[in-house]
C-alpha cells in the first residue's frame, strides 16, 4: 500500500504551541496507541484514549517546562485515559482481542502463548500492569516508568519485580529483566 500523508497543502506554517505539539506530542502518538492497546485490548477504544490524551496534552502543553519529561508526562495522560475508558465502559472482563483471522495452525502455539501472557498481565493490579507494559513493551527506562506511575524509581522497580515474579515465577529476576 502506498501511504500519502498530510495532504493538506493549505495549512499555514506552524508556530509556537502548534509547533511544540507537532514536534513533541505527535511523535508520541504511536507509543501512546501501543500502550493503550495493551491496556484496553481494544484498538478503537485505544485510539479514542490517545486522541483524548492528545487533547489534554494540547491544553496543558504550555505548562511543560522540562521537555525531556514530555514522553512520560504524555504516557501518564494516556494511562489515565485508559483508566477512565475502562470505567466508562464498565469493563469487567478483559477481551483477549484475538483477531478472527489468526487461525494459522503453524502459529497456534505462539498465539496461545501470547493469549496466556496477555491474560496473565491483565490480571495484575492496574499499576503493576502499567509498569510491565511500559518497561517490557515500550522499552521505557525505569526512571521514566516511575514518572508515569508517579512513584520513586525504587517503588517502580519493586512493582516490576513483583509483577515479574507473578508472571514467571521460575525465572531469576535479572534473567527476566533482560
Amino acid at each position, binding site marked *: *500500500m502506498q*501511504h500519502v500523508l498530510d*495532504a493538506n497543502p493549505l495549512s499555514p506554517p506552524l508556530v509556537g504551541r502548534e509547533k511544540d*505539539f507537532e514536534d513533541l506530542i505527535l511523535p508520541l502518538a504511536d507509543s501512546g496507541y501501543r500502550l493503550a492497546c495493551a491496556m484496553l485490548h481494544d484498538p478503537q477504544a485505544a485510539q479514542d484514549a490517545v486522541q483524548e490524551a492528545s487533547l489534554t496534552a494540547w*491544553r496543558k502543553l504550555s505548562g511543560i517546562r522540562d521537555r525531556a519529561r514530555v514522553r512520560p508526562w504524555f504516557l501518564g495522560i494516556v494511562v489515565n485515559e485508559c483508566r477512565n475508558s475502562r470505567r466508562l465502559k464498565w469493563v469487567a472482563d478483559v477481551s483477549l482481542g484475538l483477531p478472527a483471522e489468526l487461525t494459522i495452525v503453524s502459529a497456534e502455539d505462539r498465539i496461545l502463548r501470547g493469549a496466556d501472557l496477555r491474560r496473565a498481565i491483565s490480571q495484575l493490579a492496574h499499576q503493576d500492569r502499567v509498569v510491565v507494559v511500559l518497561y517490557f*513493551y515500550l522499552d521505557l527506562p525505569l526512571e521514566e516508568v516511575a514518572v508515569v506511575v508517579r512513584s520513586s524509581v525504587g517503588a517502580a522497580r519493586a512493582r516490576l519485580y513483583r509483577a515479574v515474579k507473578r508472571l514467571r515465577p521460575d525465572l531469576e529476576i535479572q534473567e527476566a529483566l533482560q
Partner: protein
Amino acid sequence: MTLRADISSAYDEIVPASPALRSQIRILVGAERSAGPSSPHHGAWQRAIRGSVALVAALLVVLVVATLLIGGRVMQDWKAFTRSTPAQNQPSELALLEARPMQLTQLHADDLCPETPLNGPYVGSVPVYIAGGSSVSDPWGTYWYLAAVTDPTVTGLVLVRGQDLRTGQPVVFVGKWASGPVVGSDTLDGKLAPQHLDLLLDRRDPPLNTGHAGTFTWGFTAGFAAGASGCTGWQVDTTGYPTMIIVWRSTPGG
C-alpha cells in the same frame, strides 16, 4: 525467548496499524484551536462560576434524591420511558433521513469541480463539518481517513452519502460508523472490511473524544474506487436540519 520478547510478541498480535491516528489527532486539536484560545478573563470567569455551579449541582442532587425517596414510582416510569423511546424512534428517524432524495448533480467531463470553500480547516458549516486527512491506496482504489465534526446542536442522527460527481461512482465507507447496504469488501490495514454506502453518526452513541464545547469528532474512512475523478459530492442529512451538500476535491486538478 526472553520475557521482553514474549510480551512484545503477545501485544504486537493485538495492535493493528493505525495510520490515520496522527491525522485524527491533528483534526481534533485543530477543532479545539479554531474554537479560539481561552482568554485569561475567560478562565477567571470559569473559576468564578465554578463554585456556584457546584452549589447548584449539589442542591439538584439533594432534590433528585429526595424525589426518588418520596416516589419510587418516578424511577419506574422513567425506566419504562427510556427503555421504549430509542427502540421506537430510531428506525423511523433513520428511515426519514434515508428517504430524503439525493441532490448530488452529475458533472460533465470538462466541468470545473464546484468545490465548497474552506471554512477554516474544514469544509461544511453548521451542523456538520468535514476535514481531510491522509490516504492509502491499494488495487481497489484509495481510502481517505477523514473526520466529521458535529455541532453541539446535533442531537440525533447524521447520514452521510457520497458520490463521484464525474463518474457517478458511489463513495464507500468502512469502519466503525459505516452503515447501510454492503456493496463489496476489501482488505484495509490487514483486515477484511465490508464497504458500506452510508456513514451514520448517532449523537446518542458518540465517540469518546470531548471536543470543544460539545462538538464531537468522528474519524471515518471513505473509499474511492480506482478511476475516481477526485471531485466528490457529500450529501449530509441531519435530523432537524435541511440537506447539506459539500463538494470536496481530493486531488489537485480534480
